[in-house]
């Protein structure tokens, strides 16, 4: 028997988990030691989240064994896992609307033994944690629903920290996190590890895995595909472990052939809540990126273009007419708008199929009102294959893995067919291989004359995909880059406010 201090913090052996039709985890061995940062990588639907959900007591396992801090464990609820020092930051934003930021951060630990909430103390604790994750400008009493998805993501990180865990599981904390926010996250992780907290870090951003992790476990199709120790960490090797092959080489961004084609978007002095005085012009068939740091106004710019928010100043013409008064009107005119935060756009209980086809039903109608079911299925199937969607089309969308849900969101607008496609973080949580495929798809669309605008928190993605990038800083255009440019130059311009 190994001595107490040699035993890892948590140890899973031969863990097996089946959902009705899906065998999500197949005999996985996994362990985390104290003070260790273990990276967990794998394609969408590989079973990463399921594995850590089991560890955090959110899901039962069918076979295998689990030991936590030297004792057998079989958690019936997240609460039991918490009592044993395991906390997970979930992949999807699970926050309680109608409650304040402070309440959300300290949810579940609001009271002492007396059962009475000490509001002043709660607020003070929340304030400290907010500062720690870099949300100094958010007031603890603010309703949570007023925050942007990025801010909400940071709140969920604070929430996990508030639990003071000995084993912290971060399920894709950095998906759609802008550079500056991510840079604040890394030291927190390292510091916790130095304090002896074991950390499981899931991400599709392999560069940060290299930077952060002591050891990496790769999953593929519910099994462990390989383990890399500190010395062996390297992006190419991980790419192969994730997808079983090297990454398809992405072509150099090419200048759109019709740069002087008609203007699809023309804005002068455009202003909203944060963005101000924007002048820009997008042409038919362009593939334009929007870059910037946290709160720079990328999302707001897309909202304005989509007609989901009315401009407070300036003029804006979209598709040859003044911008529509409502999103619905815009959509009718041929705008497709994928907002950030996928939970906002999905119908969790409805099947994948309905989720995908909902915006395109008018096209799929047969008799007067009725939808042509066969055509619908065929169309959804096709688009699902294009974006590499894994999962049954008739399953409720909420059971899909996070990355696959993201693909459903994207498919909705691809299926509808638009003249102007506005995508806010289209590849958040999507694995590297599929991301390359999506990029290819977007290039094809742009070649067909569709204008595609991609707002992304990842400079690397913009550099790979876009011929032109508009960089925002504090609501103003701080620079415009044309290919060739590097990710670093995007970051540099972002900070140059």
């Amino acid at each position, binding site marked *: 028997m190994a001595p107490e201090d040699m035993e890892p913090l948590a140890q899973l052996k031969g863990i097996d988990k089946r959902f*009705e039709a899906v065998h999500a985890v197949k005999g996985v061995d996994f362990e985390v030691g104290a003070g260790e940062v273990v990276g967990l990588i794998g394609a969408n639907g590989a079973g990463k989240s399921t594995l850590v959900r089991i560890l955090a007591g*959110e899901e039962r396992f069918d076979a295998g064994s689990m030991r936590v801090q030297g004792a057998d464990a079989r958690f*019936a609820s997240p609460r039991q896992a918490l009592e044993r020092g395991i906390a997970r930051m979930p992949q999807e934003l699970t926050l309680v609307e109608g409650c304040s930021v402070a309440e959300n951060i300290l949810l579940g630990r609001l009271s002492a033994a007396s059962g009475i909430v000490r509001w002043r103390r709660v607020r003070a604790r929340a304030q400290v944690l907010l500062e720690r994750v870099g949300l100094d400008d958010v007031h603890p009493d603010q309703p949570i629903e007023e925050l942007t998805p990025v801010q909400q993501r940071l709140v969920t990180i604070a929430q996990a920290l508030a639990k003071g865990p000995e084993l912290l599981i971060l399920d894709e904390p950095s998906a759609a996190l802008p550079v500056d926010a991510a840079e604040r996250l890394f030291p927190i992780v390292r510091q916790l590890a130095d304090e002896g907290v074991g950390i499981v870090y899931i991400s599709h951003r392999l560069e940060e895995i290299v930077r952060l992790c002591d050891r990496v476990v790769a999953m593929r199709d519910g099994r462990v595909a390989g383990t890399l120790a500190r010395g062996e960490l390297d992006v190419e090797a991980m790419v192969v472990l994730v997808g079983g092959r090297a990454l398809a080489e992405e072509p150099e961004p090419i200048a759109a052939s019709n740069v002087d084609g008609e203007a699809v978007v023309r804005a002068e002095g455009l202003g909203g809540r944060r963005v101000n005085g924007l002048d820009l012009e997008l042409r038919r068939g362009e593939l334009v990126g929007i870059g910037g740091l946290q709160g720079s106004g990328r999302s707001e710019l897309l909202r304005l273009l989509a007609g989901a928010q009315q401009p407070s100043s300036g003029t804006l013409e979209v598709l040859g007419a003044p911008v529509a008064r409502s999103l619905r009107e815009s959509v009718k005119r041929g705008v497709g708008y994928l907002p950030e935060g996928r939970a906002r756009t999905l*119908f969790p*209980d409805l099947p994948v199929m309905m989720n995908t086809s*909902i915006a395109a*039903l008018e096209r799929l109608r047969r008799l007067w009102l*009725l*939808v042509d079911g066969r055509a619908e299925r065929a169309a959804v199937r096709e688009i699902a294959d294009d974006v590499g969607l894994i999962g049954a089309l008739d399953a409720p969308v909420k059971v899909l893995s996070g990355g696959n849900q993201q693909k459903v969101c994207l498919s909705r607008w691809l299926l509808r067919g638009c003249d102007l496609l506005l995508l806010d973080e289209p590849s958040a949580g999507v694995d590297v291989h599929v991301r390359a495929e999506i990029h290819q798809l977007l290039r094809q669309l742009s070649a067909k004359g569709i204008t595609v605008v991609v707002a992304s928190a990842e400079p690397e993605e913009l550099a790979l995909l876009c011929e032109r990038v508009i960089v925002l800083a504090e609501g103003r255009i701080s620079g415009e880059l044309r290919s060739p440019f590097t990710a670093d130059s995007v970051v540099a311009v972002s900070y140059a406010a």
Partner: protein
Amino acid sequence: MSASERAAATEVPPGAPVATRRLLPLLARLGDRYGTLVGFAAMVLLFCLLRPSTFATWDDLRSIVEQASPILVLAVGLTLVLSTGHFDLSFPGILNLASAGAVLIMTEAHEGWAIAVLIGLAIGLVSGVIAGVGVASGRASSFIITLALSTIWSGLAIGISGARTITDVPTSYLNITFNTVLGIPNAVIVAFCVTLVMFSLMRWSAFGRYTQALGSNASAARLAGIRVSTTQVFAHVLFGLCAGIAAILLSSSSGQYTPSIGSGSLITPFVAVFFGTSVLAARRFNVFGTVVGTLFIGTLQTGMVVLEIAPWVSEVILGAALILILVAVAKRSR
């Protein structure tokens, strides 16, 4: 949520022999899916065994279905509204006012039955529009807006009828439900058609999809470019029409207008619809389930009258049967 907790309950201890380990989950899964229907079938069988001379007859079947017709029309309409994520409690008022309007137009203005039917439908339609606009405005909970509407309509019904029971209803109007086609009462045919329309709408139409999208995540529906308010209003309008139809069936079949014709009708359609969410483990509001739910209640009630069970015992049995079938047998609703 305790979904996973329940899953644990059906889990088999690790020591169990392999056959059991396979069989039990399978049974649990089948129970989840077909439990409600099996429970229904068992109940019917029981009644047939206990009183074969009455219960297993065509006559009895016909009267159960005929009695259930107005409720079915209400319940399928309600299914549509509930699937948008909102309540509509305005139908008791619509039943009152539409019955009063239809009957009075014949007795006071001496119009024919066709005009009476149109009046009844029009009242349902107008109420539906008002309810829909009120709910879509999003200013207050649909629960209270539609409840208030119901109160207003009921009041108006008493006002225009002078709180009298009106019985000199023309025979032509009574014949709407008295006549049969090939032995099938008209009311049943009407209910069947309404059900079919609603089923098609919810299953195959874009509008039906939109209502479900609305109910699942209203802000996502807006982001998908769905006409949220229009869809909401339209759902209430269709339900208002259903209530108008039910009012005509009810007043025609009871041969009169009484000020209390719609009161007491509030609960049963809701029971039917919520029961329906457990049928075939649908977990959503669905027309097929609603039909099963309506027939379940109708059969149970008739069965207890036929078996001459004391009223209080039959109440206890009704409640217990619901709980037994829904909680013990059927699939968890989420």
